[in-house]
């Protein structure tokens, strides 16, 4: 229990736990689960936006979007690497994703129907991700905290780009404006649901808070997100699809309508509009790439043994 005391002291002192340090099993497991889910979300998250690369309306937008999707692959890589410091392999995690044993953010189970959705994902989905993730830059596990610093920097860049897409659309032709509003109408509540179930129902939160992995409750972060979006929507000239949304002077926050948590649970359970497609897409890419990975492994082995023979 010396180590436990040491660990508790590190947490208490807001210091970082590092890979070689002792840590409680639950802490390790919880972190693996969370980082893996985060990594999976980056990888699956490439799909809804990737859906519009080929059709981006200008070459500049195409380049920005392609770079963004590339960043997501990069984020996936950092995060799997961070998880690997906890004693799992990327292959294990990828298998867990492919086989449906681990989850990814349910937001990516909604379809991107128009170009405006690329803007809405940047503004709202990346915006929500940032609100979720900024506190993680101070989380107690060092490698995760450091990965998050880098990721958050890029995410906020992405968020600005998404906002800019919507800004251009909402100041464009009537069709473009309608496209932007329609997109906000569809993405608003799913974005609110990204913060997870309300605090009264959240399962993993208390422990995570104790360990300083999580630092704010779901509802706190959701409120922060709403307060951030309202003035931005005003600048965009778009209407958040919530008739009950209003400033509450007493609370110093906006009151708003909660998302449909039953829908969230259905999507998490696998019944969202695109769950089957997203998983099938990922599985197919994995399966169809198998021969390439095998060839690379075989080649590396041959090269190694050639080198060895040459070294003799």
């Amino acid at each position, binding site marked *: 229990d010396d180590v436990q005391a040491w660990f508790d002291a590190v947490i208490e002192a807001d210091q970082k736990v590092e890979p070689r340090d002792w840590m409680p099993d639950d802490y390790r497991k919880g972190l693996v689960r969370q980082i893996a889910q985060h990594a999976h979300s980056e*990888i699956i998250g*490439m*799909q809804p936006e*990737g859906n519009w*690369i*080929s*059709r*981006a*309306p*200008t*070459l*500049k*937008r*195409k*380049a920005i979007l*392609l*770079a963004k*999707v*590339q960043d997501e*692959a*990069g984020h*996936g*890589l950092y995060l*799997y690497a961070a998880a690997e410091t906890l004693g799992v392999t990327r292959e294990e995690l990828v298998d867990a994703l492919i086989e449906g044993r681990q989850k990814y953010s349910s937001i990516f189970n909604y379809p991107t129907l128009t*170009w405006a959705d690329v803007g809405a994902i940047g503004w709202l989905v990346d915006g929500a991700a940032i609100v979720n993730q900024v506190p993680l830059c101070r989380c107690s596990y060092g490698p995760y905290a450091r990965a998050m610093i880098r990721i958050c920097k890029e995410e906020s860049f992405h968020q600005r780009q998404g906002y800019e*897409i919507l800004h*251009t*659309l909402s100041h*464009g*032709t009537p*069709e*473009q404006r309608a496209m932007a509003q329609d997109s906000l109408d569809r993405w608003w509540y799913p974005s609110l649901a990204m913060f997870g179930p309300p605090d009264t129902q959240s399962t993993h939160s208390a422990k995570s808070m104790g360990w300083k992995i999580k630092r704010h409750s779901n509802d706190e972060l959701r409120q922060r997100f709403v307060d951030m979006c309202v003035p931005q929507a005003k600048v965009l000239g778009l209407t958040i699809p919530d008739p009950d949304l209003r400033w509450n002077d007493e609370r110093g926050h906006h009151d708003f309508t909660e998302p449909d948590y039953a829908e969230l649970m259905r999507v998490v359970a696998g019944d969202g509009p695109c769950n089957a497609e997203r998983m099938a*897409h990922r599985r*197919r*890419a994995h399966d*169809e*790439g*198998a*021969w*390439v*990975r*095998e*060839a*690379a492994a*075989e*080649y590396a082995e*041959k090269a190694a043994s050639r080198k060895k023979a040459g070294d003799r």
Partner: protein
Amino acid sequence: MLGDDALLAAQRLAEWASRAPTMEEDVALANIALDQLGAARLFLSLAGDEDELAYRRDDREFRNCLLVELPNGPARGDLDFGWTIAKLLFLSAAQRQTYEVLAAEGGPLGEIAAKTVKESAYHFDHASLWTRRLGDGTPESHHRMTGAVQRLWAYTFDLAQDRAAWLAVIEPVLAEAGLERPAEPEPKLGGRAGQHTEHLSYLLAEMQVLHRAHPGAKW
């Protein structure tokens, strides 16, 4: 011509986004696609408005080599990594040579080429490495890569100004990968004169759909 080649190469490579055989390769292919797209924008902007040129011309007005418009596999919708690597190997070798010549000539075109030539060298290295891995990997990868090289060879005749120099670069890569250099077939030509394959009009239909649906809109 250079701009069209790079633009279509980018469009095809970008089809890999979220589908590559490894995550590292997802990053690498997107990177190469971004380089090609960047080059396309520079070259097209020399000739006029980049978006006007990319989005408002129909297939008969494009002047790309046929190789870049071909799908990422033998049939439309295919995503065959070996095929994609063979295309990239052939293209990047030619681009590097062309850009080197232009860079030496100077002028506005030369300035762009001086930048893109470094990228092409990286693309060529990446494609060469994978050609070796696949050619000298498993029997299956060798078989697939052989098929790709054989089928695509006829599309390599309008890539380089100096085919001998191009062959001098390609042949050692194939040899090192244990891949047979195909016999010279009847060349497939026409792209430089606006006579394309059946694939290009599909590619453009998808690429241009949104831009064309909103004439005059800003994005």
